[in-house]
């Protein structure tokens, strides 16, 4: 185990992630509304050692009741629409919605019209758009850090 921890420390030194210059935090609740799992796989790496967004006070929280941002992936399927709305209803104000990935943004929707409602924007007001198929962990991180900065400047309150 010590070797593993030493390796991770060495890895961190090699990657050389800069110390954050900003304060603030963001609690994110992810909701998969029909993605291909690509956005999820990249989002997991955002909290991994190579990006480590926790440095900026960003965390994935277990409940929408603890969340500042609802991070939604996928073209919204008819079967996930109610769950998505329920999660949004459970969030405290001020609350924001981020659409993650091209499907969520309605670029090149997959599936048939009877099973898919459409873009996240067709169901909820969207504040942040993160394009890409899927966006890389770095792109997701940059977009979410931008949201912390906007919150810092009071534009989200």
């Amino acid at each position, binding site marked *: 185990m010590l070797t593993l921890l030493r*390796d991770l420390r060495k890895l961190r030194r090699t990657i050389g992630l800069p110390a954050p210059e900003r304060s603030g935090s963001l609690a994110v609740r992810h909701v998969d509304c029909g993605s291909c799992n690509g956005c999820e*796989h990249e989002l997991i790496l955002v909290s991994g050692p190579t990006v480590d967004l926790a440095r900026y006070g960003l965390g994935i929280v277990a409940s929408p009741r603890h969340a500042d941002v609802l991070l939604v992936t*996928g*073209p919204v399927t008819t079967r996930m629409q109610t769950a998505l709305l329920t999660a949004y209803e459970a969030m405290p104000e001020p609350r924001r919605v981020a659409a993650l990935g091209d499907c969520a943004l309605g670029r090149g929707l997959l599936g*048939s019209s009877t099973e898919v409602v459409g873009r996240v924007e067709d169901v909820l007001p969207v504040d942040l758009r993160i394009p890409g198929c899927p966006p890389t962990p770095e792109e997701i991180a940059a977009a979410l850090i931008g949201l912390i900065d906007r919150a810092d400047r009071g534009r989200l309150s």
Partner: protein
Amino acid sequence: VTTERTHAGTGYRSAVTEALADGWRFAGLHASTVGDRRLVRALLSDASGAMRLESAEVEDGTVPTIVDRTPAAGWDEREAHDLYGVVFDGHEPLRPLVNHDVPLDHFTTPVRGADPYQVAVGPIHAGVIESGHFRFHVVGDRILHVDARLFHKHRGIERACEGLPLEYGVSTVARSCAACWVTNAVAYAHACEELLGQKPTPEVARARTILLELERVWNTLNDIGAICAGVGLAAGNNRFLALTDLARGLNARLTGHRFLFGSVAVGGSDLGLDTHATADARKTLTRIRRDSSRAWREILFNGSFMDRMPDIGVVDAKAALSLGVVGPAARAAGVPEDVRAVSPRLAYEGFEAAALRRQAGDVQARLEQRALELLPCLDILDRLLTGPVRPAATEAAGPESPIGVGLVESPRGATTCVVERDGDRIGRLRLRTGSYANWPAVAHAAATNLLPDFPLINKSFELCYACVDR
């Protein structure tokens, strides 16, 4: 070449029963329409990789069930009922699977006894996980039964494919799932090439095999990390997350996409790798081999971690065969089947399925099986990346056919893709992935275990929801 026979009445049921007795295995079932005839087709495969279809005429909306002959057909029959309205005579109760517009008690299994209660989880989970609903029937902490209600992510991808030109279908079909993109794309390409009377040349086979194994490398690293996450071993999870990132970065440098999207086409391969690219790949893969072995040793000798593994979530060989379990989960239970050993359309010469000494079919065996399989996977890449890879086309191999089948080993097991043509377009398509085959086994593995162990059991299969729901 796939053989196909159509039966009326009970001929279908007896044909499938005979085939199963002769050692053929169930590999998928779907409902289809040819002209004004409605059919149900059962796909069977044998140990040599041969495929055959036994089809039944749907009479009065009904065909005889085969679920009592092969329980592996359970989900397929339920799906065909929900989406195509076919009734399977003898499949009782024929519970809904894809259809969510039914009361919960139609879907769940009745559980009776002293003090059982239900724990509902999902469709939205606490971490970054795909959406799906689990209903645990428990007494105290002990799981009696789990009903998995998936298909929250059902996007109607198969329907959306109908009418697409054969060569355009690949991007839609494959994108059912990012984790299995290459597998799905190659299975679809193989099916289409059978339709078109084509077969891959050795150069096409080599390119596709490289892509399949690159996909297996990052998936295997990810899956080992996921099991660490299932226990809460952050150091192990983080180490393997970093390796997963490294592998995906290599994918991007080689093909322009971290998940290899767009790297497979019907009728040939566009993949071009010069000697710089192959040298970069070999160097990165050597680093992955070294760093993953080192991390694996650390995990293996971590007592508090490994003590969580044995005898949890057991699927033994008998259950694996009956439920139709495939891939690392089946091999960890002592069912030594790997489609790569019988894939003449790919470059797996001399491949033999990796076998553990301890084939207990529990979480530990599934974890160890993955670690064991990473090494031959890296060996295959090492062998195939010795020289530049050039774009190439498939070659004519025989007559065209109305129906084609692809069978490819995904990181989660055998994936089949059946394509029925309508001229030069897709008439009907069915994608049945390794995850689809294995989901019933997750429920089987969870029974009698403790509820807090379910995340670990689930992670030890690490199945996709996206390509199951489609």
